[in-house]
C-alpha cells in the first residue's frame, strides 16, 4: 500500500493536482468576466480530451471532433428554438450528446467494419467535416429550417436559451462549476481507464491492431464504440459552448476549429491526458494574448507548432517534460529515502 502511494508521486500526478486546484481557486480570485472566459477554455479542454481518447489511447486519428462538436451545438440550438420552455434544456443537452454519439456510431460503423486503416480514417473524417461545414454555411435561405429553427447560413443560430436546471439558469460561476465538474469527471475516467482492462484493450489496439484481433478482441466493434463515445464527448463540449455563448455558427465546425484539438493534443502529448489539459490551458491563454497583436498569425503559429512538434518532440512537449523531470528526480533522490514513481523508477525495480 505504502509503495503504491509512493509510485503515484510522479510529475504528472503532481501537476494534475496543481492544475485542478488552480481551476478550483480561479473563480475566487478573478472577476466574473475572467471566470466566464476560463469556462470557455475548459469547454475546449473537453473537446481536446475527446480527441485524446480516440487518438492518444486508441490510435485513431479523427479529424471529425469539430464536426461532432458542431452537431451537438446545432442539435441543442434547434431544440431550444422549437421548444421555448427553458426547464427542458437538460433534456436537449442529452439530445445533443446523443446526436453526436449516433452520428459518430454510424460513421464509425462504415469505417471500422470496412477495415479502413489509420490514414484513411483521417481522410474520411476530414471530408466529413468539410462537407458538414459547406452544408451549414449554405443554409442561409428560409427553406433551411427545422421546425421553428432557421439554420441561418454563416450567421448560424443566435440567442439560444442557456442551460437551465429547474428555474435556475446555469450562467457565470454556476456554468464554470458545471464545466469544471465535467472536465474532472472525463479526466478521471480517462486516467482510471488507463489502468483497467478496457484501457489496456484500447492501448493494444493502438499498438497493434492485427495482434489484438488475433487475441480475440472484436477490434472493429471496440473502435466503433470508442469513436462514438468520443463523438459524444465532443458533442457535449459543443452543447456547453452553445449554452455558454448563446450562439452556434458554421465556423465552429470549420478548418481552424477542426485543427485546434489536433494541435493541442499532438503538441501536449496525445498519450497523456494530463499533458493535454495543461497544454490546452497554456495555449489558449497564450493565443488570447497573442490575438490582441494580430490574429492573422494565429494559424501560422498553429501550423508551425504542429510541424515542429511532429519533427522534434513526437511525444508532445508536456509529456516529454514529465518524463525528463521524472528521470532527473529519480537520479537526484537515488540515495534518499523518498522514491519516485514513473518510468525511471519502473526500470530500476522491475
Amino acid at each position, binding site marked *: 500500500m505504502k509503495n503504491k502511494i509512493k509510485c503515484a508521486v510522479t510529475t504528472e500526478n503532481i501537476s494534475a493536482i496543481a492544475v485542478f486546484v488552480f481551476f478550483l481557486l480561479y473563480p475566487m480570485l478573478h472577476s466574473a468576466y475572467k471566470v466566464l472566459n476560463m469556462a470557455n477554455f475548459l469547454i475546449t479542454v473537453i473537446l481536446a480530451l475527446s480527441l485524446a481518447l480516440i487518438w492518444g489511447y486508441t490510435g485513431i486519428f479523427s479529424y471529425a471532433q469539430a464536426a461532432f462538436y458542431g452537431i451537438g451545438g446545432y442539435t441543442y440550438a434547434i431544440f431550444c428554438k422549437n421548444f421555448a420552455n427553458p426547464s427542458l434544456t437538460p433534456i436537449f443537452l442529452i439530445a445533443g450528446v446523443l446526436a453526436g454519439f449516433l452520428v459518430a456510431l454510424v460513421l464509425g460503423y462504415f469505417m471500422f467494419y470496412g477495415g479502413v486503416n489509420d490514414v484513411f480514417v483521417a481522410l474520411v473524417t*476530414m471530408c466529413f467535416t468539410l462537407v458538414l461545414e459547406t452544408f451549414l454555411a449554405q443554409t442561409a435561405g428560409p427553406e433551411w429550417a427545422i421546425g421553428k429553427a432557421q439554420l441561418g447560413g454563416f450567421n448560424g443560430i443566435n440567442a439560444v436559451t442557456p442551460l437551465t436546471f429547474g428555474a435556475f439558469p446555469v450562467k457565470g460561476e454556476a456554468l464554470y462549476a458545471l464545466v469544471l465538474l465535467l472536465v474532472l469527471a472525463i479526466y478521471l475516467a480517462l486516467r482510471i481507464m488507463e489502468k483497467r482492462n478496457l484501457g489496456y484493450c484500447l492501448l493494444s489496439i493502438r499498438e497493434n491492431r492485427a495482434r489484438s484481433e488475433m487475441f480475440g478482441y472484436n477490434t472493429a466493434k471496440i473502435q466503433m464504440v470508442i469513436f462514438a463515445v468520443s463523438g459524444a464527448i465532443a458533442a457535449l463540449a459543443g452543447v456547453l459552448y452553445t449554452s455558454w455563448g448563446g450562439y452556434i455558427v458554421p465556423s465552429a465546425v470549420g*478548418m481552424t476549429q477542426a485543427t485546434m484539438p489536433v494541435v493541442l493534443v499532438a503538441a501536449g502529448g496525445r498519450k497523456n491526458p494530463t499533458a493535454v489539459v495543461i497544454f490546452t490551458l497554456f495555449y489558449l491563454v497564450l493565443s488570447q494574448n497573442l490575438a490582441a497583436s494580430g490574429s492573422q498569425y494565429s494559424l501560422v503559429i498553429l*501550423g508551425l*507548432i*504542429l*510541424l515542429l512538434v*511532429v*519533427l522534434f518532440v513526437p511525444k508532445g512537449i508536456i509529456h516529454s517534460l514529465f518524463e525528463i523531470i521524472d528521470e532527473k528526480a529519480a537520479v537526484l533522490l537515488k540515495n534518499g529515502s523518498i522514491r519516485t514513481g514513473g518510468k525511471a523508477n519502473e526500470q530500476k525495480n522491475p
Partner: protein
Amino acid sequence: MFNSIFNYFYQFLDSFSFLIIAVSGLAIIFGMMGIINLAHGEFIMLGAYIFTILAKASVPLVFAIALGTVFVGIFGYIVDKLVVSRLYGRALDSVVATWGISLLLRQGILILLGPSIPGLTTPMGTFAVGSSTYSIYRIVLAAVAIALLAGVYWLFMHTTFGLHSRATMQSSTIAQSLGINTGRMYSMTFMLGSALAGLCGALYAPTMTITPTMGQAFQNDSFVTVIVGGANPLIGMTASGTVLGVIQSALSMLFGTFFGKIGLLVVAIIVIRVLPQGFSGMIEKHMVKGKR
C-alpha cells in the same frame, strides 16, 4: 435529345478531368510512399498563383503552365528534404506534419498577397451544340487528363524510374538490397507528385477565382478519389475517376453542385465499406484470380 446527351457527356468529361488532374499528384505519392499529403490542395494553390502571376506578366500560357509545374516540383523537393523525408514510415505523423505545412502555406499566402488576386478569363472561347455553348478549354482539359493517364502509364511501365519505383512500392527492403536508392526514389516521387499538383493548379487557374483557400476545392474531391481508388495509382485513379465522374456529373445536373459533392462523400463511405482496398484492390484481386 442529342443536345442533352452531349450536355451530360460534357459534364462528365468536366468532372472526370477535374478528378484525374487533381488527384494524380496525391495518388502517386500515396501509392508509392503510403503518405497522404494534406498540403496537396495548397500545392495546387501555389501552382495557380505562380501561373497567374506569370501569365499577368504576359508570359505565354504554355510556358507559364510549365514554369508553375516546375516551381511547385522544386518546392515539393525542398519540403521533402526538410520535413517528409524525416517521417518515412510514420504515416500518421506525416499526415499531421503536412497539415501543418498546409496551414502555413494558406495563411502565409493570405498575409503576403491578400485575400485574392485578379485571375485570367478562360482562354480559347466557346463552341455551340444546339442552343447551348460550351468552353473549348474544358475539352482541352479532358484531353490533358487522358494524356496525363497515358504519361503516368508510360512512366511507370516503360522507364527505368518506373521499374525502380514499382520495385520500391512492392518491397522497399528487397529493392534496397538490390541496389535501388529507395530514399532517392521517395524524394523523386514526392517531387513528381508536387509537380503534378502544380500542373493542376496552373491548368485550372484560368477557370477559378485565385484565393489562398482555393486548394480546398481540390482537396476534398481528390481525397475521395484516392480513397475510392485504392493503393495502385494507375488503376485506382482511372477507375475511381470514371465512376465518381459519372456520379458527380449526374447528381450535379439533377440536384445542383452541392449534392454532387455530398454524393461523392456518400459513395466514398459506401465503397470503403464494401471494398476496403478500393477499386484497384478489387481489380488486382480479380486479375490475380484470372491468372491462376
